[in-house]
Each structure stands twice: as structure tokens, then as C-alpha cells.
């Protein structure tokens, strides 16, 4: 019986293939066949996360930017610069979302990392601190 491959091994393989220029469609087809054959379909979202993290480790940061109000181009450039500098990224790609429930500030979700400058989180932190006291 073949050895069960860990999620980390699978994600490393997928990232290798994508970086080698193999089309995403072919790699995903291969991965889907493996997961189906090994009855591991329930792990597919986790493997996608693992692949994102592996690509991020190799310098390709793909994430999302959430804010309560639209951000200026200057602010967005500063955020991209910060990510490039702090995470040693070669490329940064952020999808933008407006979310009024954040009250104010912004949040960047990256694979395995987060910049959270929202008022909503700060209020939650305050709430917890006061409950502890």
C-alpha cells in the first residue's frame, strides 16, 4: 500500500509544478484525482491554504485587503511596500473588499499572516481585557 502523503508534501509538489510553468488546470486535475482516489476530498480547502502558504514562502504573496471605506492609492502603495519589506516578497497581489462592519481602519489577510488595524478588533480586545479584569 502506498504511503499516505502529508498535506505539506502535496502542497510543495503543487507549488513546484506551478512555478515550473505547468498549467494550473493540469496540476489541479492531478491533485483532484489523487484526493478522490485516496478519499481525502474533505482536505481540499486545507491543501489550497497549504499551497498558498508554500507560494508565499517562495515570495508570491496573494491576499485580500479589507477596509471600512475605500483606501487612497497612497495608502495601498504603503501597505504593499510594508508587505514586500517585512515578508521578503517578490510579488504582492491584493484583492480589495469594503466591509463597513470593521468600523474603521483596514485588515490585510495573507497566507499565514495578517495585518489588523481595524477598530472592530481593537474594540474586541478591549472587551476581553475588561472581562478579564
Amino acid at each position, binding site marked *: 500500500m502506498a504511503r499516505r502523503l502529508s498535506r505539506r508534501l502535496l502542497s510543495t509538489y503543487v507549488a513546484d509544478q506551478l512555478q515550473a510553468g505547468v498549467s494550473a488546470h493540469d496540476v489541479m486535475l492531478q491533485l483532484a484525482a489523487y484526493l478522490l482516489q485516496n478519499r481525502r476530498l474533505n482536505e481540499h480547502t486545507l491543501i489550497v491554504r497549504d499551497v498558498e502558504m508554500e507560494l508565499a514562502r517562495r515570495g508570491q504573496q496573494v491576499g485580500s485587503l479589507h477596509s471600512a471605506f475605500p483606501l487612497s492609492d497612497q495608502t495601498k502603495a504603503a501597505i504593499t511596500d510594508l508587505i514586500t519589506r517585512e515578508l521578503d516578497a517578490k510579488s504582492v497581489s491584493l484583492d480589495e473588499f469594503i466591509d463597513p462592519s470593521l468600523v474603521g481602519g483596514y485588515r490585510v489577510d495573507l497566507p499565514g499572516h495578517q495585518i489588523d488595524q481595524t477598530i472592530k*478588533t481593537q474594540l*474586541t480586545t478591549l472587551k476581553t481585557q475588561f472581562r478579564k479584569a
Partner: protein
Amino acid sequence: MSQVSVTELSKELRQAIEQLETSGKIDEVGVVIRIGDGVAWVHGLRKAGFSEVLQIETEDGIVEAFALNLLEDEIGAVLLGEDAQVKAGQTVRLKGTVLDVPVGPELLGRVVDPLGRPLDGGPAIKTKARGIVEREAAGVMDRKSVHEPLMTGIVSIDAMFPIGRGQRELIIGDRQTGKTALAIDTMINQAKQKTGVINVYVAIGQKLSKIARLVDRLKHEGVMDQTIVVATSPSDPASLLYLAPYSGTAMGEYFRDNKGHALMIYDDLTKHAVAYRQMSLLLRRPPGREAYPGDVFYLHSRLLERSAKLSDDLGAGSLTALPIIETQAGDISAYIPTNVISITDGQIFLETDLFYQGIRPAISAGLSVSRVGGAAQTKAVKGVSGNLKLGLSQFRELASFTQFGSDLDDATKKQIDRGQRLTELLKQPQYQPLSVWQQVASIAAVTGGHFDHIPAANIKPAQEAVLTKLWADHKKAMQTLDEGDKPTEATEKVIAETAKKVAKGFED
């Protein structure tokens, strides 16, 4: 309800706001992928360390957990609170610290949970120091041999199985045999004799009604001022039951490290092992004997190793431990009892049969032992209790023969008579620990043969009469004796004469 000061509240709020991070910091985060039975499985956070605190952001605030299973692809974390608010997909952050609890004299007189949060309805606890919950035990060079006595006030223990400061002495027995009662009496004695020893009582999965009764009793006896109660109930998550003894020990260690003396009571480690088994099985660790995980020995050995007598260079403080283990039908060869017996420096075994015969405390003279306490026994008690244990063990063996009513030689008959009187003497009501002089005078009266003509039923009243007379007529000599030094010939003579005189009034 405590009074609310608006000025203080606004000051607190301003401080809290100032403490909030405002810089653009990139945090490492993970995500909850599964949750259930108090265990959260987290994806990401590859830098997480063992036992590190994780913070899960829920809609209702932050719920803390600690990482116990570090796997290749995910982390198994045990929640420190209710899991109702935690959902899959929520963000998890590293707190950057291992678990710690508030420690210090501010906790004295309080009932707290294993995270140091008050349970007694009192004000918030603000301590100057915090102690690490899972701390390494003191090393060889940091220690000193056990040499100072920790008086329990229970004659049979102090005379036959003396406990020293820094010792680990197990209290073991079936349910309802008086295990907790021994521990409570020991705590009461620390207050009555003004030994300055701080008590830390750790209730692991105990009924809240029992804890409430215990706290009431400690308050009534005036012991609560030098006691910390760490309480967990059967309805608490297994993680809190698991943490309770470690948190309590961190609180006790504060006093040990500051030249003080503390007494830890873990009530009981059987429930602790069961809580750990539950957590381990939920974390999918392989089960071993009786479904306990492979490291259940290490669970208790690393806890009890923290009890120590520190060297003079480190302030000569001490942490004494009285762990409690509940057996099933007197079976001390079960898994957890044998583990803890081999870790501790001796055990006090309580027998159900003795308990129901009215011999209380129901200490088995044959199966109980104190491996290091002999060096710590007060000279006064040592001087009179020489072969008490041997005599009592032999008597209980011989007593079984007398049931057949066979003819006995004079020597055996004498031994049985003396044994019956000793047994009566060692009976002691709850919440009435005896001081050193009371113990010495009582034992000397019986072992000196002065009570040989008193019927066994009259031994206790005779003992009380001797003690009352000695205190009334020779208070100064008794106070000197109470200091623990070997009794002088004059004192021995005084005790013998008083015992003889009093005994006449109780003979048939």
C-alpha cells in the same frame, strides 16, 4: 456589589487604549479548521511552541487555548474556556508567552480558578508578580535535604510517619476514608501552631458544595488568611482540571522562592489523571494501559518534583506536597496509585475496615511509610515514639488471632493490651490537631505503662485529663517541650507522675 469609581474606570480605560498596538505589525496567524469537545485544530502558526498560548478571535472576544499537539500539518490546542463561541474559520494568533498565573501574597484568603481568576465574588486580584504554570523543578545543587518538621497535628502521623518540609507524602485510600480530612487537619494545624506555612489547596474536579464547605471550615478555624484555594469542579473543561495542580504549584513556589514555606494539597491526582486521559484521547494520542497516554507518569513526576527544600543560598524555602489518590476497593497496585507511590517520598494508607471500626484516622500502620521524614522529626516526639509503629503493626497482626479466643501467653497478652490502648490513644477527632507537647505527653503516658490498668474505653478521657492537668500545673515546662527539643529528665518525670495520678481516677 463593590463600589464603582468613575475616575478609576476612566483611568483604566485610558491605560487599556494606550496599551493597544497601533503600529502596522504583521502577525503570524492561523485558522481554526475543526472544533469540538474543548479541542481546537488549527491550521498555520508553524512557529508555535509546545504549551504556548494561542488567542482565538471570536465574535464575543478572545478565547485562549494552549498548544499541546504540534503535528506536521496542524496544531491541536486545548481551550481554556467554553468552546461555544469558537467556530471553524476564526483567526488564531500566538500570544508569544507560555501560560502564567498571578502569584503573591495578594492571593491569600482567596478562592481562584486555575488561571488565577477569582471565584469567591471578591474584588479583582491584582498581583505584582506572575508565575509560569509549567516551570522546571529545582536542580540538585539548588536543594537541601529535608530536615525541618512539618507538623500535621495528627499524632499517628507525626509519631510514626513524620513529614518534613519539602517532602512529598501521598495520602491514599478508598472513597470516604478521611483523606481530605487529614489534609484539612494539617492545614488547620499550620494556623494553630503558627508555623507560618502557607497552604495551597488544589481541588481537582471536586463538587462545588464540598469546596464551599471546606472554605467555610477553613474560615471558621481562622486558617483561610494563610490559604489559597484553587478550585475546579466536574463541570469545568478538562483543560482547567489538567492545569489546576500546575497553577497551584506556581502559586506555592512564589512563597518557596521568597524564603517562605508552603504546603500543597492536590485533591486528587486520580481525577487529574482522568482529565489528562480525556484530553489525550481527544487529541488522538495513542492510548496505553487503562487508556491513559504513555506520558501519564511524567504528568505527575514533573508536578511533584517541583516540591523541594531549597538550599541556604536560595533562601532555604520549602514546598511540601500532600497529593491525594483515591483507590478502588483498596487496590494500591492499580496504574495511577503505583505511579504516584513510586514518585513520592512515602505514603499514608487509609483503610476502609479501620474507618468503619471507628479507628479514625484510619491509618494502616503496616502499609504506610515516610521515607525521608525521620530526619525531620522533632526530637521531642522522636524521643517517645521509638517503636510505636512496630508495636502497633504487631498488635494488629496478633489481634486477628485473639478473635479465635485461644489461650495466650502473658507476653502476647501484654502486647495486645498495650496495642489496644495505643489504638485508642491514636484515635483523634477531626479538626482537633494536637501540638508537640500534647503529642509527647499522650504517647509517653501510654508507652510508659501508666495507662496499663485503665480500660481501653477510658483512654481518651484519661488522656484529656492528663493534658488539662499538665497545662494547669506545669505550663512553663510544657511550653518548653512544645519547642520540639528532647524532653529533659525533669519533664519526663513530671509527665509520668501526672499520668500515674490521673490514671488512678479512671481505673476499674
